[in-house]
């Protein structure tokens, strides 16, 4: 299985999945931490993938979405955005609608 296949599988098997540095309890970077805060504030159920544990995924996720940074949120298999966009969507109420 290529890394793109693995990522596709991860994205398909969870309704809401955040690719991040660290995990939900211990985010390892400020932007990942912000993304977790926003998702928690929505009361959403979500899974996380710690890219620090897998260098292939860490690089592959950037090619997968043609997006150069982590964290990255996927909802129903679709790339939603990084921490800036998540914050924006949360402030407008759109993220909550997306996750409900």
């Amino acid at each position, binding site marked *: 299985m290529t890394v793109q296949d693995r990522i596709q599988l991860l994205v398909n098997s969870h309704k809401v999945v955040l690719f991040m540095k660290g995990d939900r309890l211990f985010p390892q970077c400020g932007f990942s931490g912000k993304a977790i805060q926003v998702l928690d504030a929505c009361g959403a159920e979500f899974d996380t993938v710690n890219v620090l544990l897998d260098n292939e995924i860490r690089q592959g996720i950037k090619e997968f979405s043609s997006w150069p940074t982590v964290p990255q949120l996927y909802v129903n298999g679709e790339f939603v955005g990084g921490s800036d*966009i998540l914050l*924006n969507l949360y402030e407008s109420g759109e993220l909550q609608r997306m996750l409900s």
Partner: protein
Amino acid sequence: MEIDAVRALIEAGLDQCEAHVEGDGRHFEAVVICPAFQGKSMVRQHRMVYAAVKEQMDSGLLHALSLRTFTPETWAARKG
């Protein structure tokens, strides 16, 4: 990277765009105002900016770039 270099790259990569950049040399924040953002999703708008600095991000010269994107209209509305 220098703040001015980041700003110059973004403005060179997007037509008629204005960029305001802050940062500490590793992590940057940019406000980017561009008429071409009109009607595009945030993801698409941000992708346009990232495309302008792709080389620097790929090489690691630019590590993190937070973005807030606006059209000239939404920017004016925000300030007023």
